[in-house]
């Protein structure tokens, strides 16, 4: 008995069992259910167990699907590029230009606080800025830059991507800052002693050493944007679509099998993307 209790397998599973149970019940089972239901049939008012490929046939046979998947990748790629640029710059500033540690922590917290507030409120708060009579248009008109209000500021791809960048840049800043703080400062001195300019040190020393952080940030941003439906719906005023919205529209129409099939395809796309990204980084080593 004592030997069993001391076995690391038993101990490990005893401690990890609540975690395993919750992940099984609310992650593995739901995904299995979605996969099963994706083969079911639906009538107007109920769903019927079956093994039919018609949901997938419809999905892959429709032009809309390809356009919507393309839009999803487009949002992910543009948001990724912008959050990486901004996130890297901010992390670089915090890690290498702020000299006092207290100041570093204070400014870092200043960047992270919005993460703990509501995303929906943060989206709503763009309305007074971007609306037809919003602050941006009023300012541009008063400066004489434009004569008529710009219509594409709100309810457009522009506002969707702006909101994504606003919500998710933090997911780049934190892991990149984390890896930058672990860079041995004597490497930078060595680079300078060897005659490297500040820019050369950045490109040839800091950037390569920051790659793991960039990868983790990338995984966060790409999956958040690809799985999103609410930002696109709210910021585009329901005028733009991505895969998440395709799913949520089907759900609203009670077309669960069709929503499930789209979900399975989305899940495979996301997991494939992650699998590719994970080839570049060992997450367990970075913690």
């Amino acid at each position: 008995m004592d030997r069993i209790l001391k076995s690391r397998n038993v101990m490990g599973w005893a401690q990890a069992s609540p975690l395993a149970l919750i992940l099984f019940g609310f992650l593995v089972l739901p995904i299995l259910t979605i996969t099963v239901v994706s083969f079911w049939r639906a009538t107007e008012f109920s769903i019927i167990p079956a093994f039919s490929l018609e949901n997938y046939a419809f999905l892959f046979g429709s032009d809309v699907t390809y356009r919507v998947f393309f839009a999803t990748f487009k949002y992910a790629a543009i948001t990724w590029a912008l959050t990486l640029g901004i996130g890297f710059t901010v992390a670089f500033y915090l890690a290498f230009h702020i000299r006092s540690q207290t100041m570093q922590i204070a400014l870092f917290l200043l960047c992270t606080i919005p993460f703990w507030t509501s995303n929906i409120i943060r989206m709503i708060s763009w309305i007074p800025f971007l609306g037809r009579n919003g602050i941006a248009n009023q300012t541009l008109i008063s400066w004489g830059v434009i004569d008529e209000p710009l219509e594409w500021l709100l309810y457009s791809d522009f506002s969707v991507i702006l909101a994504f960048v606003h919500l998710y840049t933090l997911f780049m800043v934190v892991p990149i800052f984390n890896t930058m703080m672990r860079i041995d400062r004597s490497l930078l001195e060595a680079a300078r002693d060897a005659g490297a300019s500040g820019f050369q040190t950045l490109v040839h020393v800091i950037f390569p050493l920051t790659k793991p952080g960039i990868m983790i940030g990338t995984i966060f941003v790409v999956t958040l944007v690809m799985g999103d439906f609410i930002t696109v719906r709210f910021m585009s005023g329901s005028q733009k679509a991505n895969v998440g919205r395709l799913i949520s529209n089907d759900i609203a129409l009670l077309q669960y099998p069709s929503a499930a099939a789209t979900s399975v395809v989305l899940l495979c796309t996301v997991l494939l993307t992650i699998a590719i990204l994970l080839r570049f980084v060992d997450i367990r080593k970075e913690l």
Partner: protein
Amino acid sequence: MEQRPRSFYILTVFFALFILFLYGPTLTIGILSFQGPQGGLTFPMNGVSMHWFFDLFEQQAVGDIWGAFRRSLALGLMVMVTTVVISVMGGLAFRKRFRGSGALFYLIIASLVIPSILISLGVGLIFNQLGFKIHWATSGFGSQLTWTLPFGLLIMFAVFNRFDKSYEEAARDQGATPWQTIRYVVLPIIAPSLIGVALFGFTLSYDEFARTLLTAGSYNTLPLEIFGMTTNVTTPVIYALGTLTTLFSLVIIGACMLALMVMARRRARHGSDAGRGV
């Protein structure tokens, strides 16, 4: 101190703009929530008043937001406590490799990257097929845990990777049982990180939308209620609500930071008692 390079000043401006970008919109709706009774959703301010805050207290104007707030608060606390307990246990488990630990680790990562709406849809379907009623305290609670637990666990992994095992060895050498070692040695050392986990658990639950959407049942949580308002409320009352709930989040964040600071100060004051023993 050496001269600051020119890049420092350029980056300082960039950083300031970034902070303005982060906080500007929220501050704007903070100001606009004080619109006069005739004011609209954008500037100019039509007088200054507390009108829209008072409106929040009138049932018919905004629906059941106080009920939604109470539910979100209760759910947030439930998720917070569960996240802390399970993350600590999980963190302890993952200090040693056990059979299947690799698979469980990838499940945690999967939980983090899976699109939220899939959890919502899947959990909703299961409850539906089994004939259970979806409710924020059951299906909503479980769905939110799939979002808060990965954050809690990643923090615990980082904490235990930096944990000095010689403290435990010392306790064991003094005759402490495994439970005593955890209770009197490990937990006090990792206590500050637990406040961090609790903060993540509460705030991520309090603001969660997508995973709760199809799993909350007939009683909405606050984010769901706010989202419902965006489609039919066209007055600054929604700004007033946004301002209040953001202030509430800030108070929670502030309380956690304060607790951390008090803890750090107490530790510094008591310091080490090495050599002062019996």
